[in-house]
């Protein structure tokens, strides 16, 4: 019975990792850019929400809603002012710029908010649980997982059923030809990064409400997100969810055997998938 419980907790944890990964997956899919500051941006958004809660006294949901347009603006600005300048055939410049951003952001947060771990207070939700008969699950993990599914459904709808989504796909396939058809790739990229930052804000809300966070935890979140994207296969958002679930389940099983093995088990699951299926489980894009 304890194994069923571990499995369910792992699947739900996977929802959180899928949320971390969805923004990364979106940006990579459209402009082949891996943002090494992705994890730090999640932590940054968590502090933004926390400020809304502590300084303005807002409930976390409202604070996140206010943070979303701010983060969209930040993403838009980051893309149009910095990243668009370094995108090109050579992958080194964007990689190094986002790495610089990661280190700068991490230490900027450290100076502003100190190394103390913080948490977004979620009131009665924090300890609430649902008895499902076989297992008891926390309301918060359940909400996280549901949000991950909603985010993926929404992103897929945006991608395949709107004019903007068509522009995204066209630019992803061939930016030059898309430009001939009246699409401005740089503007599309800026919007895409903005949307990724909105997803980052949702991920940050759950990151901050579920557990303590501090400025140094960004890179580890980036790694989990990256592993989920790779396991799922590039370009498939549902694959990313599956990847997140695999990492989550591996981690909870690892932790059930020995608490020290939690993180290690997740990484080993990733390496095992890499060994068996180098292109991920559900590859869509060809790179």
């Amino acid at each position, binding site marked *: 019975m304890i194994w069923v419980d571990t499995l369910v907790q792992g699947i739900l944890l996977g929802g959180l990792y899928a949320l971390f990964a969805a923004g990364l997956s979106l940006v990579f899919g459209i402009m082949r*850019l*891996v943002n*090494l500051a992705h994890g730090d941006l999640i932590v940054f958004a968590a502090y933004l929400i926390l400020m809304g809660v502590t300084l303005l006294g807002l409930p976390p949901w409202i604070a996140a809603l206010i943070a979303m347009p701010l983060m969209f603006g930040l993403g838009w600005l980051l893309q149009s002012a*910095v990243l668009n*300048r*370094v995108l090109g055939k050579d*992958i*080194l*410049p*964007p*990689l*190094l*710029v986002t*790495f*610089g*951003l*990661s*280190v*700068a*952001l*991490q*230490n*900027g947060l*450290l*100076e502003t908010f100190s190394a103390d771990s913080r948490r977004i207070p979620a009131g009665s939700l924090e300890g609430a649980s649902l008895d499902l008969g076989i297992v008891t699950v926390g309301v918060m993990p359940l909400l996280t997982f549901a949000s991950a599914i909603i985010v993926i459904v929404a992103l897929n709808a945006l991608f395949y059923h709107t004019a903007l989504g068509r522009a995204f796909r066209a630019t992803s396939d061939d930016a030059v030809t898309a430009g001939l058809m009246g699409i401005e790739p740089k503007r599309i990229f800026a919007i895409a990064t903005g949307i990724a930052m909105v997803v980052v804000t949702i991920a940050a809300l759950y990151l901050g409400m579920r557990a303590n966070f501090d400025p140094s935890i960004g*890179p580890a979140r*980036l*790694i989990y997100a*990256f*592993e989920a994207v*790779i396991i799922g296969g590039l370009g498939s958002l549902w694959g990313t969810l599956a990847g997140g679930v695999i990492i989550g389940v591996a981690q909870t099983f690892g932790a059930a055997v020995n608490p*020290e093995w939690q*993180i*290690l088990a997740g*990484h*080993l699951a*990733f*390496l095992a998938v*890499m*060994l068996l299926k*180098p292109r991920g489980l559900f590859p869509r894009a060809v*790179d």
Partner: protein
Amino acid sequence: MYKLTTRTRAGTTTAIVAVALVLAGLPLPAVTSRGVIQDLFFILTMLTLAQLWNLLAGYGGLVSVGQQAFVGIGAYAMFAGVILAGWNPVWAILLGGVAGLLLAIPTAFFAFRLQGAYFAIGTWVIAEVTRLLIAQWKTLGGGTGTSLPREATSNILGTDAIRALFGVREAAARDILAYWLALLLVVIVTGGIYWLLKSRLGLALAAVRDNSEAARSVGVDTGRLKWAVFLIAAAATGLTGALIFMQTARISPDAAFAVTDWTAYVIFIVVIGGIGTIEGPIVGVIVFFILRSALADYGSWYLMTLGVIAIIVMLFAPKGLWGLISSRSGLHLFPVRRRLTGPKIEGGI
């Protein structure tokens, strides 16, 4: 009569200056304080790591964010050699190189399946896995780490002679020995990379960097080239890691596998100095050290500044400071370009 050469006047001058600097560096411990020697040790080891990362990323196109794996495994292999096998720490440093090489084989096997940016994070994952596995190794202190035993640090090869020569205490003698070894290592690594770039392998590397398809069409085996560069860099990084932790004589998984110290700093040095040149890391490490000394009292502002400078350099001077200098003056201190020399051809160009 006609021959291909890479020799230039600037190159010859560099060689003379380099030899003079190294010769001047040898007796330095006699006239400077222990603090200066420690600073120089730091500069030399960071320069070595920077040259190696530059070889990977600047010449080989392999942007690794996981070089801390090789620093860490090299350092731990050195500690294992001393603590478990009772080797002298100086010989155990060689073990660090071997460990780096051995770890590089499975790492390359996994990471080479990933392209570009994914390669970068893939190497990072492997470094994390290595750190977590080493933290399980209880004989070497597990997660909290351990120190070199007293009997080992007091018997390091050559320290007795150094103590007698300079009349210093044991710890200072270890610093001097480490400094000399770092000087040796930086000369071997920089000289080795320069030699490599002038060799057939270097020509192949330049060809792949400029146009990978064209290089393959004339028979350059790009896969084998990547393996060669990755293994060489890993082994030398392992040696450097072992040397760094022989000097500190204390190790922990978090320190030995620190992404900030062994990869972030190194990347900033190379980027600020100028990626894809041997001069770049040298300029970069000087700038890095000056910034570090100037901003030492400001804690994390220092790292934040470094990050921002790296972004600015990447945006406005992607070839780094040395790129600016070299494009203005046409100066190449380590020339690798092959030129045809010989008597002037009558009526020719």
